[in-house]
């Protein structure tokens, strides 16, 4: 019954999208400036129905209605309620429904909020957004329908994968989708702007908050994904340059570039076509990422189960999007008159964009290059952290320095009188770096540069904030985000420099010593839980200098349904560092393999990203208040 109801709602929504497109285009012929009430009403209906449709699927998961294939494949009666619900969007079909909800709701909200903008522009945004909605609805209906039914109805579901039962993983997709799926609205708006020649700076007003919202949530989504990887995957890292991670990072680079060039466009009306390009690029990258991840073309830690037909459909959709974007851009392109002074804030923002494109191209290349070599030469290569670190980090050093100076540069023309102050700050940064080396240990040239340049950014931002605070002119949003970015890079750098990793094979009762630490496998217990058996090791970490002891209890979990083995890391977090320990058994031996890591300043890495996002939300709040 749920299956029929859900399918009915999908059909109705397809119908409604067609109605909206038709009525919207029709009302263009009416000469007044207003969009008819019916369009608002149909839009409201459309949003309501898709939400009900989504709740229908959730209901299916909650009651464990295994007549729905998606529920059967991804749920289980024994799953806790919270994870039954989050299981709704933790699979391919359900997540597509989440795509459609966000596309639809954003369509509706944009329509309602942009009342002060030209009618034609709003109409075309609505039309194009609905074409996107239709694309995904068709995809769902004909290829990946969460409401597909099976018969006879199985008694129990298959989906009890313990790794997927995690709170961070539960909110990770919704956050991320508010980001890169949300970017669809300014994709449509950009197309509409081109079609209706709405190239005044007011166009920037209409999309800037949407760009901000999607940017904030994309950042949070990436953060939560990294936190999950750190806590759940057991390797102690939080970023692997895995294709799925890269797929979320690519739109982020474009969004960040867009965020900044919108400032220039709004203030001085420059770079309209570049802004449009970035709007189009962001969502194109989002769909590209979805293609890479779901088509099975790439091998990754977190690949969804794959099916080639999915890939073909998404690829076709993507190609259509790209071609229509390029076509429209070429058709409407007009040479702009620039009056650009090298010594201006505009330039620095251009430079930000320039570097963002570098990062984007590097990550894109690294992600899809193996596909090309495999198809063309049959030779499979791997591109992992070593590649990205070597290529990107040196450039980040320069980027941080520019980021520190840029915001203080004046619009149009800057006289650079305060070069001296920057030299002083640089001096201070080098001194602090020197202090770190002196107190702790020395590290590589690249690490030195990273620490110095991130310190430069942090100190510049804080001094700038302090000075402008006295005049009551502080731009808190920007200061918080920029300084926090500096902190993020610095903490990542320090964490990398001062991390200790030790790998041992250890027996019960044995102690291993290294540096100032002793690790002893004190105890091993087996405990039975409702759906798994756990072998829990008690390891005592003793700091021989301070005599502090920590007991960490990593686990080896043996699940029945499905038969899986997982390794739960034991993590103790404190202000200065995390201790991270995983344990695994060695086949045919009574030795256990333990990996001990001391990871300094981990929690500050997360806090930095949260602060970056807070800067974004603050700006959003300010914008809303100003209106």
């Amino acid at each position, binding site marked *: 019954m749920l299956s029929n109801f859900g399918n009915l709602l999908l059909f109705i929504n397809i119908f409604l999208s067609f109605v909206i497109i038709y009525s919207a285009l029709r009302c263009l012929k009416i000469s007044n400036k207003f969009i008819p009430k019916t369009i608002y009403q149909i839009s409201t209906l459309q949003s309501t129905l898709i939400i009900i449709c989504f709740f229908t699927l959730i209901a299916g998961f909650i009651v464990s209605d295994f007549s729905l294939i998606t529920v059967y494949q991804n749920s289980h009666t024994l799953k806790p309620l919270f994870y039954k619900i989050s299981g709704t969007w933790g699979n391919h079909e359900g997540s597509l429904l989440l795509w459609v909800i966000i596309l639809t709701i954003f369509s509706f909200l944009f329509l309602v909020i942009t009342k002060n903008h030209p009618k034609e522009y709003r109409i075309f945004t609505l039309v194009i957004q609905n074409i996107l909605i239709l694309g995904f609805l068709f995809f769902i209906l004909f290829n990946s329908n969460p409401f597909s039914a099976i018969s006879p109805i199985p008694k129990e579901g298959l989906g009890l994968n313990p790794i997927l039962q995690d709170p961070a993983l539960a909110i990770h997709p919704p956050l991320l989708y508010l980001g890169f799926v949300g970017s669809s609205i300014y994709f449509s708006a950009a197309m509409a702007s081109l079609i209706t020649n709405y190239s005044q700076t007011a166009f920037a007003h209409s999309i800037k908050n949407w760009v901000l919202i999607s940017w904030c949530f994309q950042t949070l989504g990436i953060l939560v994904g990294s936190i999950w990887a750190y806590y759940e995957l057991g390797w102690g890292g939080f970023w692997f340059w895995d294709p799925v991670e890269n797929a979320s990072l690519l739109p982020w680079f474009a969004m960040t570039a867009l965020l900044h060039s919108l400032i220039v466009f709004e203030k001085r009306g420059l770079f309209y076509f570049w802004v449009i390009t970035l709007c189009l690029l962001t969502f194109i990258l989002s769909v590209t990422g979805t293609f890479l991840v779901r088509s099975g073309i790439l091998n990754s830690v977190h690949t969804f189960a794959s099916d080639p037909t999915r890939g073909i459909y998404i690829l076709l959709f993507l190609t259509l999007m790209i071609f229509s974007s390029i076509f429209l851009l070429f058709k409407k392109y007009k040479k702009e008159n620039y009056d650009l002074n090298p010594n201006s804030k505009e330039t620095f923002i251009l430079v930000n964009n320039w570097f963002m494109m570098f990062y984007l191209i590097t990550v894109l290349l690294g992600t899809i290059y193996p596909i090309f070599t495999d198809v063309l030469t049959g030779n499979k290569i791997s591109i992992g952290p070593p590649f990205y670190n070597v290529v990107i980090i040196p450039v980040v050093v320069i980027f941080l320095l520019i980021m520190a100076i840029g915001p203080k540069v004046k619009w149009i023309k800057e006289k650079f009188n305060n070069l001296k102050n920057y030299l002083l700050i640089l001096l201070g940064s080098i001194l602090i770096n020197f202090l770190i080396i002196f107190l702790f240990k020395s590290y590589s040239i690249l690490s030195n540069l990273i620490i110095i340049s991130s310190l430069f950014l942090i100190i510049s931002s804080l001094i700038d904030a302090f000075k402008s605070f006295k005049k009551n002119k502080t731009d808190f949003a920007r200061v918080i985000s920029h300084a926090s970015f500096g902190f993020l890079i610095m903490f990542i750098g320090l964490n990398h420099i001062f991390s200790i990793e030790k790998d041992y094979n250890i027996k019960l009762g044995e102690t291993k010593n290294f540096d100032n630490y002793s690790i002893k496998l004190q105890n091993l217990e087996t405990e039975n839980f409702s759906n798994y058996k756990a072998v829990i090791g008690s390891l005592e970490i003793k700091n021989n200098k301070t005599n502090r002891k920590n007991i960490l209890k990593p686990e080896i979990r043996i699940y029945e349904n499905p038969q899986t083995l997982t390794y739960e890391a034991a993590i103790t977090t404190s202000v200065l560092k995390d201790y991270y320990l995983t344990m695994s058994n060695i086949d045919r031996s009574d030795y256990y*393999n333990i990996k001990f890591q001391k990871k300094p300043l981990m929690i500050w890495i997360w806090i930095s990203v949260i602060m970056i996002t807070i800067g974004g939300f603050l700006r959003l709040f300010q914008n809303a208040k100003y209106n």
Partner: protein
Amino acid sequence: MKFKLLMIILLLNFSLVNGEEKKVDQNTIHKNLRCLVCQGQSIADSNSDFAQTIKLVVKDLINDGKTEREIYAFMADKYGDWIVFKPQVNKQNFILWFLPYLALVLGGVIIFFLFKRRRN
């Protein structure tokens, strides 16, 4: 005067730079090798049997005095380029290593021309 001070401090700082990384680090190598029986994990991160064996082999190779590069070459020879996470700098991967920097330079050139235009 301030500039000279800056230079001195810079030199002092960088004279302390850790040049010691020439020593072959087991962990670095483990991180750069792919666990072939896992989904996207490195040898360092994997608990699999295969990973354990590779760790033993790497240890032996280090004790034999092989350099990091030689160890990667050995592994790539036996298991294919797929096992090493850092793509080789060769003709096949030329585009991979140089395109990003090419793009960077191109971007700079474009911006430079944007400034030139305004003079018209």
